[in-house]
């Protein structure tokens, strides 16, 4: 039996096969038992029939002999009637005897008896006919011959009976041995059918319940919220496999749905994060704007006034004063108009230069301003008012007390996919603790160290750069190095963003 093929039958076919197999087995057992019993019974009855038949035959021969003798003596019609009755019976019996040539000893004797009996009946008939014809010599001879033939028949019958008895005894012993063998055979049949039945039942039960059990356990895990269960691999090719396939499909659909929901959730989170960043940026800008307004009390008034002063100075021929006032007006205009927008690096550097012109005019030649610019970077965008607060810090904290040769050096260069702006001064510098305080942006209290006298603090600059560059950490957008007595250098890193992007 190909169990692999059996595995791929439908559940109904499996169950049907099981019941058919069991029915066939039990029918076979019953059939074999019935056949054996019938065979045994036939053998025993066959033996008895043989004995009875041979005995009847012997008696018939003796009766015929008596009937013939009786007729020969008294020639009565009754004797004649008896004779014919016995003759008919004997003839019928003789017809039942096989006359076919044979190798078998007892069958050979039966054949011999049959032929001799035919001769015997012939002689009896001859004797009766001779008696009726009053032919004394013939019936005497015939009757004498009958006697001789009767001796032969008796001898053969006795020999046959002896053989039959011998065979009967042998058959009896054989039957006894057979009976034992049959008992064992029956025992084997019952035991094997029991084992086959139990085996098949176990197999069938396991074949059906095992995949169902697996399916149930997986389903329980899924129902308890564990969607990471393995796919149920069932290849029974029956209804259970259909169920398992449906379960796997359902599991796959649930997983896909969950993945979709997770993705949506992540997107929402990202969106919220961005919104938060925007809010934060707005907050910072507002703070910067506030600072700016605080420092300029009424910037529009001041700006208009400065313009009027510049024109007046020009009318009066004071050109340098006019230019100075004009620069101050430009500075304030930039601070007012550009705050909260992104500007090109060129604009931002121009504003720094305006600021430096103002400082130079105020403090003479003790502070010089230098730039090292990679010009192809000037069109990239930067949040406005980033550089001026740093330069202002460099002046206030680094160079204010320096009597001469103060230097602020701004350089712009490309570093990989980023733009680096370096603001260096050769002022008094900071010790390590001051530097650490300055860099502690996340602590609100420490931000005052980064503030200039009335402007925007380093923290504000760093926060806006972080948001602008989508950086995870301040270190990615700003770094400060300083040495006491040697000066301070601030590094700013920007992403390469074009104005139209």
């Amino acid at each position, binding site marked *: *039996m190909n*169990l692999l093929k059996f595995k791929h039958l439908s559940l109904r076919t499996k169950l049907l096969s099981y019941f058919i197999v069991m029915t066939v087995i039990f029918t076979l057992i019953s059939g074999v038992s019935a056949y054996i019993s019938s*065979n045994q019974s036939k053998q025993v009855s066959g033996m008895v029939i043989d004995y009875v038949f041979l005995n009847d035959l012997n008696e018939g021969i003796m009766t015929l002999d008596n009937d013939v003798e009786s007729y020969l003596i008294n020639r009565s019609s009754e004797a004649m009637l008896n004779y014919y009755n016995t003759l008919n019976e004997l003839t019928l019996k003789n017809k039942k005897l096989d*006359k*076919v*040539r*044979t*190798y*078998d*000893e007892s069958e*050979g*004797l039966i*054949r*011999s*008896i*049959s*032929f*001799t009996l035919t*001769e015997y009946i012939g002689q009896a008939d001859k004797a009766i006919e001779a008696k009726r014809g009053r032919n004394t010599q013939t019936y005497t001879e015939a009757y004498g011959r009958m006697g*001789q*033939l009767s*001796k*032969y028949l008796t*001898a*053969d019958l006795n020999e046959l009976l002896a053989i039959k008895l011998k065979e009967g005894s042998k058959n009896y012993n*054989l039957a006894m*041995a*057979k009976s*034992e*063998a*049959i008992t*064992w*055979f029956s025992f*084997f049949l019952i035991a*094997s059918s029991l*084992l*086959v039945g139990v*085996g098949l039942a*176990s*197999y069938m039960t*396991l074949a059906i319940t095992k995949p169902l059990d697996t399916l149930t356990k997986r389903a329980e895990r899924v129902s308890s919220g564990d969607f990471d269960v393995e796919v149920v691999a069932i290849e029974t090719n029956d209804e259970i496999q259909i169920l398992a396939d449906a379960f796997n499909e359902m599991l796959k659909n649930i997983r896909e749905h969950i993945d979709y929901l997770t993705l949506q959730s992540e997107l929402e989170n990202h969106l919220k994060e961005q919104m938060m960043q925007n809010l934060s940026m707005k907050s910072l800008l507002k703070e910067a704007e506030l600072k700016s307004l605080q420092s300029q009390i009424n910037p529009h008034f001041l700006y208009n006034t400065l313009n009027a002063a510049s024109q007046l100075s020009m009318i009066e021929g004071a050109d340098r004063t006019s230019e100075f006032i004009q620069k101050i007006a430009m500075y304030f205009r930039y601070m007012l108009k550009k705050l909260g927008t992104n500007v090109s690096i060129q604009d931002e550097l121009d504003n720094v230069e305006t600021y430096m012109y103002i400082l130079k005019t105020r403090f003479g030649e003790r502070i010089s301003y230098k730039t090292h610019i990679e010009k192809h970077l000037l069109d990239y965008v930067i949040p406005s008012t980033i550089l001026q607060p740093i330069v202002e810090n460099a002046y206030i904290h680094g160079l204010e007390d320096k009597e001469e040769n103060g230097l602020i050096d701004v350089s712009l260069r490309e570093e990989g996919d980023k733009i680096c702006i370096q603001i260096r001064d050769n002022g008094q510098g900071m010790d390590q603790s001051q530097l650490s305080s300055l860099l502690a942006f996340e602590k609100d209290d420490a931000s005052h160290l980064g503030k200039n006298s009335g402007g925007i603090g380093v923290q504000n600059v760093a926060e806006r750069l972080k948001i602008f560059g989508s950086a995870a950490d301040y270190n990615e957008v700003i770094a400060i190095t300083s040495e006491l007595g040697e000066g301070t250098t601030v590094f700013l890193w920007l992403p390469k963003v074009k104005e139209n992007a």
Partner: protein
Amino acid sequence: MKKAFQINWQWLIIAFLLVGIFVNNQTIQSLNIHAFFSKSQPRYQLNMILKDSQDPFWIQFKLGADKAANFYACALDTTYLEERGQAQSPFKISELIDKASVSGADGIISFIMEDPQNAQVIDRASQADIPTITLENDVPNSKRASFVGYNAFRFGQEAAKKMNEALAGRGKIAIVMNRNEVAEQDSQNLKISGFLNEINKSGNITVSEYIVSDNGIYGTQDIVGKLLDSENDIDGLFITNSVDTESVAQLLIEYNKVGAYQVVGAGNSEQIKDYTKKRILYASIFVNAYEMGYQCVETLAKIKQGESVPSYIDTTIGVLTPENLFEKSNP
């Protein structure tokens, strides 16, 4: 726990089948199912009447007859007159032939002993188209189909030659025969005549005693035993049949008389060959019984097939001596 249920079903089924085959084989043997397969029907049903079921000669004869019967598809119904010299059948030879002729036999092979009814029953069988082959003794005045036998006179002559050789032409001898042999007048007389005819040529060997048992081999053992146990001047024994030859050889061993008598016996059974090899017997004259048996059935089968057969078939006479036996065993 799960592992326990993972049974290898293929192996389990094979084990079941093996046990089943074993049990069924036992059952089939005890049910004798092979009996269902029997031989096909024979062409001829032959009736064979032989002398002694235990006589090595007739045992060999039967083997030869069976071989031929198998070859010619004949069924052989055999009747023995004696068993170890004791009467076995309630019928005389003539009655047995008569019985066979009315029992549907296609042919009869019969050992013949002196009986005046022999010719009559053989003729009656012949009239019923049942051919009869006579054995050992012929029934010349009958319609027997053929006689298969040997030249009993020459048998006696060969025995006398060996006796003469054994006694170097001088001495007294006894001839051992049994009652039934006496009844086989023709064959018996011819054997004795041939022996006396030849032995008389020496002039100095005389037959001083005829030992005739009337009670089968037990009678022979009794008479010969007494002879061996007594004071006598017998130098040699001529035994005319194989049963007595085996019996006398055994007596010589028992009485420690091996070598005291020169014995010429009859027959070629394995026992007689062994006695001859050991020189308990000087020689043994034999007729090839196997060949004789084969020839009888073959002749009858040929008659039934319409072939003509000779009316007398002579079977070879042979002489067993220690020398020719050793030659055969050490070619």
